[in-house]
């Protein structure tokens, strides 16, 4: 057996991947169901090997502001938490977006609102894809559906974050974080040297290259409204470029499908099983899985609505992504929602029943 193939929890995979893809620093505070990220990093002691630092911060608010500082110097830095902790970070994420600071935030979602429950949920979809903090901004959101993707999306998120100078989020949940699967760890990528950072991040405020470029200022504040409007237009142009180039999705058994299930993350995995069962019963169903939740695959789902008779949106929440799907479909076909709340995860048979209800509705 290849040594690089391991049986890992999703949370453990994130930690391994961070070290291997040249992450410079992690700042986090423990919370179920994501504590294994910090635990695994502490156990692996990357400061002894790659030089990556790992800090258990005093709070989530401290973590996100450490991310602001680290990212502002052009370093690849990340934090992770679960829903209530991510809620605390929203101010810092908005500041990062305003100051155009790259960084990776991992949310292993649990049920809410408030302190809620420690069980899995996808009820932070709106928060993740609508900014979440104040101001007109967007966060690049990747939704892994397997332990392998938990590992693979760490480097992808960093690449996107630095390409666009914007915070990126991995939006996972308690199912993907806690389950173990086979995972092939990503190739080792060394941490960037200070010279590489100076070259690739000429905007970074790190005290290097002062003679060549003058002082870099990292801030989200601008009191002159004309300049602030200009700044906002610049951000909006950047977001449009991300929408144009970075949409990611996966379609399964869609070629001959009459009925579509749109689902992300763990709900997509459960829906896949439901589709197997539905097909055994003669229902031609297929899966469309948005991988980027922002930017959302609007055009792709729009195109599908010309082929399908109806779409069932499966989410472990009360109906959040369903609004984006309806927006994409523009009323051409019926779109229904099925979800469980408060930490209950739907099982495949429940989804098959919801698919049958959609069929009834569409006839």
């Amino acid at each position, binding site marked *: 057996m290849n040594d690089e193939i391991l049986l890992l929890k999703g949370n453990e995979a994130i930690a391994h991947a961070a070290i291997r893809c040249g992450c410079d620093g992690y700042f986090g505070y423990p919370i179920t169901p994501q504590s294994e990220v910090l635990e695994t990093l502490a156990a692996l002691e990357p400061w002894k090997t790659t030089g990556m630092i790992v800090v258990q911060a005093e709070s989530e608010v401290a973590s996100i502001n450490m991310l602001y500082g680290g990212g502002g110097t052009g370093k690849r830095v990340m934090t992770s938490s679960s829903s209530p902790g991510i809620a605390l970070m929203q101010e810092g994420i908005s500041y990062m977006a305003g100051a155009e600071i790259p960084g990776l935030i991992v949310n292993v979602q649990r049920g809410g609102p408030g302190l809620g429950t*420690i069980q899995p949920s996808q009820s932070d979809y709106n928060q993740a894809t609508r900014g979440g903090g104040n101001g007109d901004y967007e966060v690049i959101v990747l939704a892994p559906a397997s332990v392998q993707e938990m590992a693979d999306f760490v480097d992808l998120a960093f690449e996107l974050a630095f390409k666009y100078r914007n915070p990126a989020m991995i939006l996972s949940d308690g199912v993907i974080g806690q389950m173990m699967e086979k995972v092939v760890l990503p190739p080792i990528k060394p941490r960037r040297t200070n010279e590489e950072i100076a070259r690739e991040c000429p905007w970074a405020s790190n005290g290097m290259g002062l003679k060549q470029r003058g002082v870099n200022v990292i801030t989200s504040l601008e009191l002159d409204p004309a300049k602030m409007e200009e700044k906002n237009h610049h951000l909006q142009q950047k977001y449009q470029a991300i929408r144009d180039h970075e949409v990611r999705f996966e379609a399964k058994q869609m070629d001959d499908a009459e009925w579509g299930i749109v689902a992300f993350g763990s709900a997509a995995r459960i829906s896949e099983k439901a589709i197997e069962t539905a097909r055994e019963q003669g229902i031609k169903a297929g899966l469309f899985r948005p991988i980027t939740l922002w930017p959302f695959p609007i055009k792709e789902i729009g195109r599908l609505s010309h082929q399908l008779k109806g779409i069932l949106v499966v989410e472990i929440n009360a109906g959040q992504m369903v609004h984006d799907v309806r927006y994409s479909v523009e009323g051409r076909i019926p779109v229904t929602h099925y979800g469980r709340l408060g930490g209950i995860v739907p099982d495949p048979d429940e989804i098959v029943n919801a698919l049958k209800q959609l069929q009834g509705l569409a006839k």
Partner: protein
Amino acid sequence: MKQEIIISGFGGQGVLSMGKILAYAALMEEKEVTWMPAYGPEQRGGTANVTVIISPEPISSPILSSYDTAILLNQPSLDKFQPKVKNGGTLIYDSFGIMDTPTRTDITAYKVDAMTTAAEMSMMKCFNMFILGAYLKIHPIVKVESVMKALRKSLPERHHHLLPLNEQAILKGMDIVTPLHLQP
């Protein structure tokens, strides 16, 4: 052959680690696996359960509506999961503390007196390996050698002297599992 398994019992019986060792053994044989635990407060003294899926093909849902095999180690687990065994599936239970034994006649039920046997042999720490042995007797989905390799990989080295004891428990578990004959 694909196997969708639920293992359920009291916290502390080694339910999660038994599932992990089974999953690890399957990984050694280059099969696809998922291991999905109930990770709530039930680990701390209440009931604990884990869903393990082993398959030659990529696995879709880690969450299931019904199971090929249910391994049930206390009464609440038996009550909860007996109805969720697939028609023609397998139910394995430890008789210790069980008042209401399995009743379904469309599945095959097996009894394994692992708790009693482990106590008699002063091997309570290997309790879950007796159960794993019983399961592998009925569904030899992985080889015992692979389980031993998995144990060697997942146990810290300071516990490696216990490996022969674990193997003994697996083999004994294979001996003591018996079909439960129900009157239809």
